[in-house]
């Protein structure tokens, strides 16, 4: 056995160890997904399955797909699922009442039958029992190889898929759009109402009095006829009883003698 074969054998053994560690976890998570009652637990178990699938992709010499799997599936898709779960109601547990008689038994039989058929057919087919390996295809790097195929041979499907993405985004917007069912007044209607009713000053409340000697906020402004405008002082100050009367600050005539006396 030469050195290359030994290395190949060892890497295959390492891969086998990782596979036999991860495969049971994946299958158990998938089974748990069917058995748990709450949808959130299902979502978390599905995330576990997807992360182990990403590891399998990287193991299968598809590092690009492995990373995309983690970013797109466990990142974006599962986030979307959890978001909708929170929107619909986290504790919406499944009802365990059978609405169709015998559906559960038939469902289990059908699923086991599909699985058995698939495994039996695949194992009998002559698919080859060793890896050809992607050393040649991945020679320039996995991402470069995939890019060459996507923008070369598969460029038309790629463009069609982009159209599909845009259509899906538009479809989601149309489906999720809802006309407001209560005619809530917008800002324009509110301001028009305010002018029409004339219940409060349209131009806002008047400022407090600004006298030559005193311009604190506790003095009401004077209206043209000399009366105090109560609206010009904040209600809080009025309630505290700190309101000063405009009469207290009337201009007092001072003679020149008084000034000189100072």
């Amino acid at each position, binding site marked *: 056995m030469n050195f290359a074969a030994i290395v190949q054998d060892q890497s295959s053994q390492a891969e086998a160890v990782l*596979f036999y560690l991860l495969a049971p976890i994946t299958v158990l998570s*998938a089974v748990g*997904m069917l058995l748990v009652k709450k949808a959130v637990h299902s979502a978390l178990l599905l995330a576990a399955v997807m992360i182990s699938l990403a590891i399998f992709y990287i193991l299968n010499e598809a590092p690009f797909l492995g990373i995309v799997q983690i970013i797109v599936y466990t990142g974006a*898709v599962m986030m979307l*699922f959890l978001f909708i779960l929170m929107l619909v109601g986290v504790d919406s547990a499944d009802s365990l009442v059978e609405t169709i008689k015998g559906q559960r038994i038939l469902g289990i039989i059908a699923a086991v039958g599909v699985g058995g058929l698939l495994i039996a057919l695949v194992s009998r087919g002559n698919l080859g029992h060793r890896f050809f390996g992607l050393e040649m295809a991945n020679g320039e790097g996995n991402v470069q190889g995939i890019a060459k195929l996507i923008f070369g041979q598969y460029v038309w499907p790629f463009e069609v898929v982009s159209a599909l993405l845009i259509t899906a985004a538009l479809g989601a917007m149309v489906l999720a759009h809802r006309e407001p069912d209560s005619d809530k007044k917008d800002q324009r209607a509110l301001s028009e109402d305010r002018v029409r009713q004339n219940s409060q000053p349209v131009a806002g409340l008047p400022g407090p009095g600004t006298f030559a000697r005193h311009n604190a906020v506790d003095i009401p402004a004077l209206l043209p006829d000399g009366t105090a405008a109560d609206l010009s002082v904040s209600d809080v100050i009025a309630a505290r009883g700190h309101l000063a009367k405009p009469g207290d600050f009337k201009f007092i005539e001072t003679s020149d003698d008084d000034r000189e006396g100072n």
Partner: protein
Amino acid sequence: MNPMNYIYLSCILFSLGAAGVLLRRNAIVVFMCIELMLNAANLAFVTFSRMNGTLDGQIVAFFTMVVAACEVVVGLAIIVTIYRSRRSASVDDARLLRL
């Protein structure tokens, strides 16, 4: 290691997803099981790609991922719309075309 192990795992995951679609009632869980089936198919594609020494299988898996993302977006929008009109995400309750 025998590459068929990956294919067997993919078959098991696919049938588990199918079982989920048949057995569960919550529309969101049914949807997650469909995602599981798509992912199982992806694993088979990636394994076949390595078995045959070409990258075409990985390209197909890549396209499957994009289509699955589109499907999730529209499907969840439909679920939210149904939930809005019926206040329920159970597939049993949505059995009439009218409200």
